[in-house]
């Protein structure tokens, strides 16, 4: 569904991603793990069109057998329209907008009012706290609630590919568990997921496959179970 080949990205003069290639198949959950500064967020921001690629290609096929888009030359809003919804690092809720307005922003490019209302009800059923706090500014929510809002907002865009940047960041372990169970459920309902995590333990539990980034390069990849059993990975990312 998403194929990245030989991607090079610079930030200013710094060469952040070097010859990164990875693939996300339809229906999969793929994790991108690695230390701080390895280039995980940069990879996601380049996919979403927020950062330009120097070399390489990112191709995305929204529909099976349908057109293939080259995301390196597609503007950010067209990437969203093609079905990639991105939950950014630090959750990125609009804290001065109400919870309801945040969810509406997730459906910004859609104009099917009735379907939007139905999706809104579904998201509120999935996260009852959002319905209860509908008219409050999102800045009043707790960290976990903001994460739920960010996921709910991304779902309002009816994603084919859901991108999540550090969904566990700053959350209590119980909340992380709840969120990851939810991601598994969203995936079973047909949404492909690409997530970035520093918390390799939870990421490898959830994901089918994973890539390990180090200093802007993919140094290892494979089935999650195999990676979790790998000695090097255990030492570097799983705490022994």
């Amino acid at each position: 569904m998403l194929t990245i080949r030989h991607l090079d990205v610079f930030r200013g003069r710094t060469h952040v991603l070097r010859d990164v290639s990875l693939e996300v198949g339809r229906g999969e959950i793929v994790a991108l793990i690695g230390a701080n500064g390895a280039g995980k967020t940069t990879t996601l921001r380049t996919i979403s069109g927020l950062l330009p690629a120097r070399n390489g290609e990112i191709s995305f096929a929204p529909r099976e057998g349908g057109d293939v888009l080259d995301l390196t030359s597609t503007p950010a809003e067209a990437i969203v329209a093609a079905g990639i919804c991105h939950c950014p690092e630090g959750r990125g809720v609009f804290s001065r907008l109400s919870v309801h307005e945040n969810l509406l922003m997730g459906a910004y490019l859609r104009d099917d009012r009735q379907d939007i209302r139905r999706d809104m009800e579904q998201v509120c059923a999935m996260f009852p706290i959002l319905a209860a706090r509908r008219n409050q500014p999102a800045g009043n929510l707790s960290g976990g609630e903001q994460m739920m809002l960010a996921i709910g907002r991304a779902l309002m865009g009816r994603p084919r590919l859901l991108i999540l940047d550090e969904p566990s960041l700053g959350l209590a372990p119980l909340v992380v568990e709840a969120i990851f169970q939810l991601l598994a459920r969203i995936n079973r309902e047909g949404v492909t997921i690409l997530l970035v995590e520093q918390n390799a333990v939870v990421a490898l539990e959830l994901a089918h496959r994973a890539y390990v980034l180090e200093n802007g390069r993919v140094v290892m990849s494979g089935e999650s179970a195999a990676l979790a059993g790998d000695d090097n990975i255990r030492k570097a990312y799983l705490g022994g």
Partner: protein
Amino acid sequence: MDGAYLAQQILNGLILGSMYALVAVGFSMIYGIINLINFAHGDIVMIGAFSTLALLVVLGLPLWVVAPGVVGVGALCGLVIERAAFRPMRGAPQVTGFIASLGVSIMIQNLGILTVTAQPRNFTFPDYMLAAVSVFGFEIQMVNVCIMLAAPLLVVGLLFVVHRTRLGTAMRATAENLDVARLMGVNINRTIAATFALGSALAGAAGLMWGGKFGQIDPLMGFLPGLKAFVAAVIGGVGSIPGAILGGYVLGLAEVLFVGLLPPVYSSYRDAFVFGLLILILLVLPNGILGKSTEERA
């Protein structure tokens, strides 16, 4: 000093405050969305005043046609200025945009001098606008009645757009976090352009009112309203639309009452008073009256 005199001064303050609020709202919106201190904003007031004169006197159109026309001219100016001067330097440091806006301001003023000369013009409104009408026992010129009614209406219209429409929600989202707004599919170039258009449309309308109230216009007239709008926006809390409205009225009232209630020898200090007031308020409330502190929950 009697009650009627005081009431008359308050009324004058509200009239002036309405115009300040109208200019300050646009100033604050533009600051809110791209952190640009736009000193060219006041010059749209001048363009609004001259286009009123052109449509009204030269073309002889009726006022109800001229008013929306001038609002449209203001919006168009905003679009052109954003596209030509500010979009190319998106992402540059704040001071770069600030200096560019001074450049745009000086350019507009000098283009004005080139085309209509620096000579002040009499701004002749139709007679019925200058006639006095009696409102609650006060004699007020029709033009002032219109200013007091039209300015709040325009501001309410703007608040409606900002808080109740899809475009307005996108504007507020973009103001808060440009990158995340892009991740929602917002075309930020179009949203920022729309913000300039809306804010500048109100400044254009203020130009019509300014000319109508003071009766004389010239190409450099925009400087003071621009500066006062800046003060009003800062007093109210920069980036906050309700703050800009409140700041506009506070400033208008304070200025008029200062001139009206103190002995006439002090009246030439009115601008010094306005800027003194700014310093005083910022010492007590560094974020302005309605400004929020920049701290936010992670």
